[in-house]
């Protein structure tokens, strides 16, 4: 059932983005007086279509590989260009109009991202304070002198109010060699301290990099005590006599201090009986439990007490309309730059091409963000819109970026690039995009 929801969410998410993108082309084309023959979401034969007031055919098509806007064009012979309608053809447009029409698709994607982020910022952001909760022995963080209790206030000079902001700043450094500058504020004084963490081709080979963990930092996560929060009625734990409120002290002779330890302990022991020492209302009780075997993973049917996050650890950021708009534009810009930089690093071989994701990963993320709430999904939509806009700007023939290059050349040379060269580069571009997609899908399925 999960898969059906994922497919649905992928169709909705990508459907919105493709529609917005094509609508950008369509809108500017109409403003320039160009006749649009067809506005299609999907390729191939139409599943449903209708005709708009201006004569454009709107179609939902069967092959879900994107969408297109088909304009009246002299290079194409679907509808003959005559003296009467020549002025309505794309090919008769001045170069600046052609550039505007082509660029409008990616622009619409960026605009959507700005609007969505504006709304989210206006609503206010909340996040966990990036307080250092743990430093791994021997890690870069420990060697640099970072210690538990400090709050990270900036990374590489960029202010970081939340854990996710820290994560984003760190992700920008993937594949780099040099030093990451971490600024820390202390509860004890108001003097900011600087720490330098050296990196060498940082996480370059990693396929799912965890930048915070790789430095040896645990941020924001509060330690979860091994306290029984809930019990499923017929679970192994209930039968063994556990009660809500029991604090687990020892399992099979092993000392348990955190909930995660207990979970690992149980999961590793399907069908194996062991004793558990718990503290219950001031006294200690020994219980014997045998986890059930679910696909070779032990389960006892027990839930955790989710610790309440103290207000002091929550960072709320509310902005006025103007401030929110500026922040939305800034965020869109920095994410665009980040997308280009990451792609460039991939081309240089500094970070693994395993970081490329395709439609299946998009489906999974779309579904999981949708499950955790509308606003989470919206921020994913904004992020994906930016990637889509950025990728389409790459100067590869077939993509909008390639068209921009050709039309710009047309402007410089004063005449269109010869048809033959266009067709040839179109074929090369098609192979390139196709290969890239196959790469992305390979990664997607390998990750399943």
């Amino acid at each position: 059932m999960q898969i059906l929801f994922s497919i649905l969410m992928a169709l909705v998410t990508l459907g919105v983005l493709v529609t917005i993108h094509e609508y950008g082309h369509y809108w500017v084309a109409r403003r320039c007086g160009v006749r649009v023959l067809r506005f299609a979401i999907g390729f191939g034969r139409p599943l449903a279509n209708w005709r708009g007031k201006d004569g454009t055919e709107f179609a939902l098509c069967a092959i879900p590989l994107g969408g297109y806007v088909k304009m009246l064009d002299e290079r194409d012979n679907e509808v003959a260009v005559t003296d009467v309608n020549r002025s309505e053809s794309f090919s008769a447009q001045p170069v600046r109009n052609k550039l505007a029409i082509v660029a409008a698709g990616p622009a619409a994607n960026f605009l959507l991202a700005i609007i969505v982020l504006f709304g989210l910022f206006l609503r206010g952001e909340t996040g966990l304070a990036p307080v250092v909760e743990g430093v791994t022995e021997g890690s870069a963080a420990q060697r640099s002198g970072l210690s538990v209790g400090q709050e990270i206030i900036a990374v590489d000079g960029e202010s970081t109010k939340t854990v996710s902001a820290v994560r984003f700043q760190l992700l920008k450094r993937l594949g780099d060699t040099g030093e990451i500058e971490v600024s820390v504020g202390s509860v004890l004084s108001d003097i900011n301290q600087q720490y330098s963490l050296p990196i060498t081709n940082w996480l370059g080979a990693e396929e799912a990099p965890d930048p915070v963990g790789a430095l040896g930092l645990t941020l924001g996560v509060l330690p979860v005590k091994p306290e029984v929060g809930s019990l499923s009625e017929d679970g192994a734990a209930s039968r063994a006599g556990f009660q809500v409120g029991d604090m687990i002290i020892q399992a099979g002779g092993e000392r348990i201090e955190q909930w995660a330890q207990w979970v690992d302990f149980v999961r590793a022991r399907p069908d194996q009986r062991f004793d558990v020492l718990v503290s219950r209302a001031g006294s200690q009780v020994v219980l014997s439990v045998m986890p059930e075997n679910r696909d070779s993973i032990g389960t006892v049917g027990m839930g955790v007490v989710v610790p309440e996050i103290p207000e002091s650890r929550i960072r709320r950021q509310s902005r006025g309309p103007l401030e929110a708009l500026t922040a939305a534009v800034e965020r869109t810009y920095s994410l665009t730059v980040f997308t280009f930089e990451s792609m460039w690093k991939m081309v240089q071989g500094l970070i693994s091409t395993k970081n490329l994701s395709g439609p299946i990963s998009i489906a999974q993320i779309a579904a999981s963000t949708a499950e955790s709430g509308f606003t989470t999904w919206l921020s994913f939509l904004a992020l994906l819109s930016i990637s889509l806009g950025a990728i389409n700007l790459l100067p590869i023939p077939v993509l909008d970026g390639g068209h921009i290059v050709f039309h710009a050349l047309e402007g410089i040379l004063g005449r269109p690039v010869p048809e033959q060269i266009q067709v040839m580069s179109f074929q090369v571009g098609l192979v390139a995009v196709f290969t890239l997609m196959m790469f992305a899908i390979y990664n997607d399925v390998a990750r399943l």
Partner: protein
Amino acid sequence: MLVKRIYTALIMLAVFLVAVTQLPPLMMSALVAVVFAAGAWEWAGLAGWDARWVRTVFALVFVGMCAGVILTYHQDLILSSTAIRPVLGVACFAWLANALLVDSYPKLSFLWRASVTRALIGLFVLGGGWLSLSYMVGLPNGWVLTTLFIVVVAASDVGAYFVGSTLGRNPLAPDVSPKKTIEGFWGGLLVVLGLAATVWWLLPPEYAHIHPVEIFLIGIFCCGASVLGDLTISMFKRESGCKDSGTLLPGHGGLLDRLDSICGAAPFFALSLVLVGYA
């Protein structure tokens, strides 16, 4: 003609059943590779390579590829599923892109008209089909899955054949194949949906996590993909100007005319098994 066709089909089915139940997965894989190599021999003709020796070389290249994959990725008498799995995704994507070529034929045929390109596409079509079948055979209860898959494809073909020949009016893809009709497509789909309902009915309780809607969707995808495989061969035949791809099977035209829908649907079937959490 029809009688001959049915006899040949029954014999093929019997041979297949014996092989799939008796042979260990890796042997079955090798056998399928040999059968597909005959398909590759026919494909060379579709690529415009008529000389006997060229076709033989092409078939040998195909067998060589399969042998290479088997030698590199075999473990415990099956092909490593982790190695194959991502390729299934790639194959499905390639078929989706190919749907575009078939749908727009002959508008985009300049993209793949060159013999070399046609031959490469052949390696991809047959290789993808072979790899997907190898994947299915290697799964737990692989022979049941593979048989089920073949039955689904055959049912879609048979349903389309009978409904198409009695009620068929509107051509499905007139530029590619004049004989296929939209009515035939629906007929095939109807039979496959009936099969899907049966599978759901008979599904052992340990696969209860597979939702009925998923089973029907797999059926629909396989049916669509098998028609796509069919149309692809028709398109290549059209481009190369021959009617039957060969004369290996009495009553069926060429071997490729039987393998086409299998090659089209196999990657989708195999990938959906991964996606619904069977494998």
